């Protein structure tokens, strides 16, 4: 019963996130590059996306921290790591290079896929290949 409600709520979260990405311009790579390209005529829009998200997010997560359980009374499953290491920084740098080349991050990539844009399909297939590469590397590394 709870599980069905949770899944429905998760689907709704995905829909609202997707609509927000489309409305905000995040699903338009030209707009994203316009923000990342600080040497050309600069488009600050994405700063407002981030700002809007953080205003709502910081209030929502502060309330959640106080409650310390979900609306359905279940325990939270939030990341607890505070580790700042080379893995975090180098991984983020690689992500940034890929984002800078394409102007597409994972969420908007899925939106483009859903919109039937061929570039979205090529991007998501490559993204999944990269994630598979990571999983295989880590699997082999743990065996050695």
């Amino acid at each position: 019963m709870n599980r069905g409600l949770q899944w429905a709520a998760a689907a709704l979260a995905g829909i609202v996130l997707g609509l927000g990405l489309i409305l905000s311009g995040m699903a338009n790579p030209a707009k994203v590059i316009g923000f990342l390209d600080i040497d050309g005529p600069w488009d600050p829009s994405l700063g407002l996306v981030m700002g809007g998200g953080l205003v709502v997010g910081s209030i929502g997560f502060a309330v959640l921290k106080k409650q310390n359980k979900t609306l359905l009374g279940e325990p939270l499953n939030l990341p607890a790591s505070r580790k700042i290491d080379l893995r975090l920084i180098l991984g983020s740098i690689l992500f940034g290079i890929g984002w800078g080349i394409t102007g597409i991050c994972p969420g908007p990539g899925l939106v483009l896929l859903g919109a039937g844009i061929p570039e979205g399909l090529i991007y998501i297939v490559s993204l999944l290949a990269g994630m598979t590469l990571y999983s295989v590397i880590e699997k082999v590394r743990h065996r050695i």
Partner: protein
Amino acid sequence: MTIDWQAFTLYAATAALVGGFMIGLAAVWLAWTNGRIAGISGILGHLVELLVQQKREAFGWRIAFLLGLIGAPVLWTLVAALPASVQQTGSLGLVIGGLLVGVGTRYANGCTSGHGICGLSRFSLRSFVAVCSFMGSAVITVYVLRHLLGVTL
């Protein structure tokens, strides 16, 4: 630096802000109902992990969330035409970029949604370092490709 007033119109700024509110709302809603972080790369990555490592983890909510995200543009078109989405790269750039984003976000444990929206909203220093790293490298990449080399992949 000059502001691109042709792109940064009052409409664009309002849409960006309202869109940002919706993104924040979606992240908060998922955390309130499922106790989970709305991190797209983490959700996708765990599904891949499930296939590669046969790790048995909850994936129902992940599938539901992804279906909602992929279905959003379809729902949008029921009401209005999708706004323009102008692609910046050809197939080569998409493949290289997609691979880098895939590997990088897995090592970093997050992307723009997980670290950028959720992590910063929780005042995580770890996420702050991640955001500075990927924002910095993205800005440098765009500068090198477009202004130093003058190429698009």
